């Protein structure tokens, strides 16, 4: 059989030509060296310009070289791979820029005195003052929103998964939960303003802000809880029901505890999302420079509101305070995120290695 003479040339041999491993790194070094030489000889300066010249040059040269040696398909493959890798790098640029800038700028004012003082009797040009009143406001507003949104959201999710699945009413509710997810935060604020303040005649308060935050938190809690409840194996419910345990007890005693870790993770992410909301608070909490511990009476402050108002001031001292508050807010959000992920990771059954 192996004696059959092959008339056609081997296709494998034809495609065997492949660049050696060192070829592309060498090309990279050459490109950088070439660009450096160009910068030395011409008035071109700056890191940004260097990258903007060296990178496209390298991609172009590499595409040409690969196309000549390995063929057009391989050249396109390599170019695509590099371009896609580049998009990832590009997406990290704003993350590094925002976090890095917040950290360096925020550290100027951040500290114990910043966290423990309010802005009462502090002029915008003063180099002291802090965000204590804003932190109190944020904690209270988010706490109230949490107390409303979490039980309500879990009940809605239980209805959607355990009772309503497939019914038109449940499909309608599910649809409007989606709509609520897309509700712009400013519209949530406008609604509470129109209802709570204009129609019912209450004054600006932390509680009004909390109502707006509840609207924004609710769909996130519903969706994440729903997802977790659906992950609970059906057999577990049936096993419980078959023991003669009633449905509602099955749900509360078996289904919810099984899904609890996931639900807690979802709730933490939902809190992280609303902690930074500014727009609805502008319309409902209004903001103040003084400490107001009572969320039900009078204007309060909140961290995002504080950042927003300080950012609008022309003084560098105010801008520094805005950065310090931004750092505080980001620390809170990141800690919540980290805790949520750790919890999710910790409670996920790991495969034995």
């Amino acid at each position, binding site marked *: 059989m192996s004696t059959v003479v092959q008339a056609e040339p081997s296709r494998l041999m034809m495609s065997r030509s492949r660049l050696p491993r060192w070829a592309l790194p060498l090309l990279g070094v050459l490109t950088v060296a070439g660009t450096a030489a160009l910068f030395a000889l011409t008035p071109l300066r700056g890191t940004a310009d260097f990258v903007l010249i060296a990178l496209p040059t390298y991609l172009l040269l590499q595409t040409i070289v690969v196309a000549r040696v390995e063929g057009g398909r391989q050249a*396109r*493959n390599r170019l*695509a791979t590099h*371009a*896609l890798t580049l*998009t*990832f790098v*590009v*997406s*990290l640029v704003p*993350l590094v*820029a*925002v*976090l890095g*800038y917040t950290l360096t*700028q925020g550290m100027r004012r951040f500290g114990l005195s910043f966290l423990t003082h309010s802005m009462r009797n502090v002029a915008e040009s003063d180099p002291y003052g802090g965000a204590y009143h804003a932190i109190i406001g944020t904690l209270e507003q988010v706490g109230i929103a949490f107390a409303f949104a979490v039980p309500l959201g879990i*009940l809605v999710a*239980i*209805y959607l998964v355990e*009772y*309503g699945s497939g019914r038109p009413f449940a499909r309608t*509710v599910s*649809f409007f*939960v989606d709509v*609520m*997810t*897309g*509700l*712009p935060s*400013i*519209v949530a604020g406008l*609604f509470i*303003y129109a209802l709570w303040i*204009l*129609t019912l005649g209450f004054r600006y308060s932390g509680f009004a802000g909390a109502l707006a935050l509840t609207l924004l938190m*609710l769909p996130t809690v*519903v969706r994440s809880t729903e997802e977790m409840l659906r992950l609970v194996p059906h057999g577990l419910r049936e096993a419980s029901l078959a023991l*003669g*345990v*009633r449905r*509602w*007890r099955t749900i509360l005693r078996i289904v919810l505890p099984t899904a609890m870790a996931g639900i807690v993770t979802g709730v933490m992410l939902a809190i*992280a999302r609303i902690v*930074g909301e*500014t727009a609805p608070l*502008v*319309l409902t909490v209004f903001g103040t420079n003084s400490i107001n511990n009572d969320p039900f009476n009078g204007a309060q402050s909140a961290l995002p509101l504080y*950042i*927003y108002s300080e*950012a*609008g001031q022309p003084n560098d001292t105010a*801008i520094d305070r805005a*950065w310090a508050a*931004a750092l505080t*807010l*980001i620390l809170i*959000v*990141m800690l919540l*995120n980290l805790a949520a*992920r750790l919890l999710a990771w910790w409670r996920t059954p790991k495969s034995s290695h």
Partner: protein
Amino acid sequence: MSQPRTPPNGARDELSMGPAVVAGRRPRGAVWDALFAGLTRTAAGLVLVLMAAIAAFLVLRAVPALRKDTVNFFTATQWSPDDTPPAFGIGALAYGTVVTSTLALLMAVPVAVGVALYLTHIAPRRLAQPMAYLVDLLAAVPSVVYGLWGLIFLVPAIGPFSAFLSERFGWIPFFASDGIFGKSMFTASVVLAIMVLPIIAAISREVFRQVPADHIEAAYALGATRWEMMRTAVLPYGRPGVISATVLGFGRALGETIAVALVLSANYQITYRILTPGGNTIAANIANTYGEAGHNGRGALIASGLVLFAITLVVNLVARSVVARRKDLSGAQG
């Protein structure tokens, strides 16, 4: 499951077995069952009540102001609701909202889809998860922080780049300018692009990851390179998901308030010059002018918010219908 009316041994009602229910009385456990089911149904109904209330109260508060409006609310560009007579329209606001959001998508979508492809099919497997977490972190940064960063860092930093665009490509009307840059619609859309990037990337990543291994292997077995595999198996399968992710990102960009309010120097003119200061959006206008708005002014702002609500509603409907069609597709093959 039923149990006797009076459990003789005090057994937990839901575990005891007993004779059939005596007609006319429901067992206590069943009452609890019905109560709990009713409670969850009420909670679910509350979602509908809330959505209806949002629409109703916005309309209720918007209509009196709209009645007094002396110009066409949808096409007029001036915003003087507290003047006598009041004259306000969302022409310029709606225009700015759509332009900044569209520009943001033009920048964000290619990068987001690229990131999603990279993370699902190129990145080293061990690193893909933490890398994806990094991109997700972009979504965790509060919008007011983006606004602050945009105002203090991006506005000055984007000046030279805008100047370069305007010098070289000033013959394209969009890039024309009178030499002042910074707090422009372009800057606003860069900030918006950064904010919607993680949303679009996360959803795209999810759909790309769901591409059945069967299709990927089929492409490889035909002798496809990795890029060709992505084009034959991954991208066509993921297209509806990417489209709906884009639409959701659009909805998010339309409603973003504080970040835009901080980086735009607001005015009420319709201009196609995206590099020069100016422009406005519905949401930013609410945050910016709410403080000094009078009675009628607040009604007018609520009216503009109502329009924003309606637009995002439609956008979300579109996104959902795209996803629904995708389900049809996968249903046909199963």
